[in-house]
């Protein structure tokens, strides 16, 4: 079954454009059969335009203390707060690339004391926030890692569902746009790929689960997993784990 471009403008309704297979029913309602839809102007495609590589050194932290610090990784030059994602390259504990989505434990010990890193954007910079506590009598050394940042052209302040503008469908020798600029092949989009082709694991839900022992005074059990990298602190009462926290996160191998 061949692919085809379709575009339609009905009086009183938004124009629609799509790349589809088979009958035009999915042009009017893509949910009729999503497997025949390759791209549709009814949908939103979060886009990325800038890739930045760098490295960061985390300072040592003394024993029995806390550190809350925000690092400025990259001056983005965008008016507003852009959406950002990224990954730690060759994470030191696991050796894999770890998506900087949500809060990620970095270099934790078996007692559950880790540096937790959360990626975001300020009005001027891509930032990484560290939240760390250290154990009595145990300090944390200075550590470095490499990272890649993916920065969107979409910002919190400017983004809404209205398209940027332009033709409902435009094909030139070097570019295709669809849905008045909603989809533009000059940008990059998040796509699921085969395991061997991925940049990282996309995380679609929970990466950290928490449990507790039966008393109100003891330690917590918790487990972080992004599908490849697992970091857990399993408190045991006697020889029995307090709770079975093993879980499978909702992830997919992706590439930008």
């Amino acid at each position: 079954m061949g692919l085809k471009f379709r575009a339609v403008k009905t009086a009183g309704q938004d124009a629609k454009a799509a790349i589809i297979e088979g009958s035009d029913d999915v042009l009017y309602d893509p949910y009729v059969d999503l497997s025949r839809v390759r791209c549709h102007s009814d949908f939103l495609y979060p886009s990325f335009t800038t890739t930045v590589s760098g490295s960061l050194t985390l300072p040592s932290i003394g024993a029995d203390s806390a550190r809350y610090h925000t690092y400025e990784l990259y001056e983005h030059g965008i008016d507003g707060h852009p959406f950002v994602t990224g990954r730690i390259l060759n994470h030191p504990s696991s050796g894999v690339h770890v998506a900087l989505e949500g809060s990620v434990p970095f270099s934790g010990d078996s007692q559950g004391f880790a540096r937790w890193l959360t990626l975001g954007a300020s009005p001027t910079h891509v930032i990484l926030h560290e939240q760390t506590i250290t154990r009595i009598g145990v300090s944390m050394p200075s550590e470095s890692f490499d990272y890649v940042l993916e920065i969107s052209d979409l910002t919190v302040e400017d983004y809404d569902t209205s398209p940027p503008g332009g033709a409902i469908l435009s094909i030139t020798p070097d570019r295709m746009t669809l849905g008045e600029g909603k989809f533009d092949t000059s940008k990059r989009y998040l796509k699921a790929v085969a395991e061997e082709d991925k940049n990282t694991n996309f995380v679609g839900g929970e990466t950290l689960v928490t449990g507790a022992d039966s008393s109100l005074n003891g330690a917590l059990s918790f487990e972080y997993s992004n599908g490849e990298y697992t970091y857990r602190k399993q408190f045991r009462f006697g020889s029995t784990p307090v709770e079975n926290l093993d879980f499978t996160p909702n992830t997919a191998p992706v590439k930008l």
Partner: protein
Amino acid sequence: MTVTITPEKIQVTNESDEVTFDTDDRLFFAADYIVGSLNIPERSTAHRRTYSHTLESCSAEADKIVGVINLDVSGVNIDAGVPGFGWFNAGGTYLHFLDGSNSSQAYPHGEVGRMSTYTFYCEGGNLKCFETTFLNNVNPFNGNILFTQRAFTLHYRIWCGTFDQ
């Protein structure tokens, strides 16, 4: 760059001959972009509960989210969470509060004893936020020292979607 169109495939390549778009790609797409706020009330020790907050309806096909969150503590300075001047990646689980406690050693950092986490996800046609708040007592041998996690608001901007099949 080149756009190549055949009956079976449409491809766009860049100057380096890398394929930047292919109709065989399994793109993440969203039918919903949801803007909202979730108020988390003050929680005090000993508080060990989970909550599933239903936020908004979304496409029934959505099973993944892409988006950002912002923390508003209304000017109260607390040693918890991300700074309010930033918007942070909302994928995975956001760790808001982390602290130590221990039943046999002095306060504060014998064991990890207090955590609160927040996860945005799509399920059954709804955008939800799953909250876990585990705030143990600090030291029973020194009296049950209460701890309070202050109220705050999580503002969110979330695309609810899935990958092409």
